[in-house]
């Protein structure tokens, strides 16, 4: 039995996560979208709407915007440079993640001292 198979057997006995192995990381879309949170707010809920909130955005609309940024069809200061860093599949996962969220309330600013 190969080393990998031995490990697989151990994993199957201890956790039964074979399906997880096949599905890879179930949080992959979340990890991709989290790269956007820095500017667009945690879970895409922007502090004061600049840059815009993404939570609850329509998936097809958002994907179209990112592709247009990437291809230079929609003018931007910075988004064309970011959009070029992701594959089509990644952009679709990101759009799908934000579409799955409820818009919710804006993220409050942190408390002053």
């Amino acid at each position, binding site marked *: 039995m190969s080393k*990998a198979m031995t*490990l697989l057997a151990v994993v199957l006995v201890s956790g039964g996560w074979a399906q997880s192995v*096949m599905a890879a*990381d179930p*949080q992959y879309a979340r990890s991709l979208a989290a*790269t956007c949170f820095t*500017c667009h707010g*945690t879970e895409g809920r922007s502090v004061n709407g600049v840059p815009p909130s993404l939570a609850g955005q329509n998936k097809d609309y958002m994907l179209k915007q990112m592709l247009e940024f990437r291809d230079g069809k929609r003018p931007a*200061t910075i988004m064309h*440079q970011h959009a070029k860093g992701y594959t089509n599949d990644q952009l679709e996962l990101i759009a799908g993640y934000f579409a799955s969220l409820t818009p919710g309330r804006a993220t409050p600013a942190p408390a002053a001292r």
Partner: protein
Amino acid sequence: MTVSRREFMKWASASAGMTAVAGCATGGSGSAGRVVVVGGGYGGATAAKYVKMWAPDIDVTLVEPNQHFISCPISNLVLGGNAQMGDITFSYDGLRQRGIRVIRDSAVAIDAAQRQVRLAGGETLAYDRAIMSPGIEFMFDQIPALKSADAQNRILHAWKAGAQTVALRKQLESMRDGGVYVLQIPLAPYRCPPGPYERVCQVADYFKKAKPKSKIIVLDSNPDIISKKGLFLAAWNGMYKGMIDYRPNSEIADVDVKGMTVKLQFDNVKGDVLNVVPAQRAADIAVKSGLITANNRWCGIDWTTCESTAVKGVHVLGDSTLSAPAMPKSGSMANQHAKVCAAAVVAMLKGQPVNADTMMMNTCYSFVSGDSAMHVASVHRYDPAQKTIAPVKGSGGISSAASSAEAAYAWGWARNIWADALV
């Protein structure tokens, strides 16, 4: 979706590690493990928040010596009089409200074998995963006259926002009109590559308004402006024309504190305000914990998990890491490290697969005045062949020009990244 053998092995070994971890966890009942975060800056505060947000059943403790979070980004605007300390100073209460234990103390030792962090106040914290985001320490030993605390209080760096920011602003306010401000920049890599050049703009903006006869001498140890060169030169040769004397290849040898002079190898430069930013390395706790792997300065990490390459079970984030190719030491990057690390730590503690396709993004704005800013951006993806994270070809870039529109985006970036770390 298929999983490569390499990815499977990585996941399986992480899971095996998790089994051992769960066996020794003694957190509260129902706890999925204990995470101790050392350092509450851009990296550590964000990591603590995201571990708790993505796994509320993990006990998270954040150790930070300062009472408040004070942001380095935007602190140059305080020097220029375009922002106040209150604009960049925030409470850690938002993290407490999330159920994170925030301890105001310093870590003095990590015992990786016992999985314990010892604090200066005497408390010992047990962990299943430790996250170190200790920031930088200045290499004062390279500038002989700056070894004393007295000298350090007179020749300021203001490269950690806080008391030094306030003190340098006071020095600039006290300077006579017609005086000379000298900024000495260390060799890269250092915290915030465009930061020194932004500072030159902010001081020039202040001088132009308040002390128009004053001059700025920039002593750059580097052979050229290392970030947003064309954009900074446009400001220096435009709105600040005649105010800035930029001198590349100007490595510091020493300072004469009484004579207010920066000593270079073949030249002495006198000023009314000297602002010397020393070379930097990972903070002392990283040295004491055996996390330094490169040039006696930086901590090597696995870019899919941010786990130290030297000490198992300990993750390292932010400016103290050995930066990957073309990755700046920035608040944005520390924020992105934190989320990659938090996702990996949660997955490891819960026996879930760890993402091997790490993506990170950088966005750094610089203000050339009070109401005009520009950016540099990049996107980075893990390269399994090179075992590092590298810029995605064709992505990223800089502004076409500084603008007021980008100043609004820069403030939007700041407000969102602060909330992303602290709320």
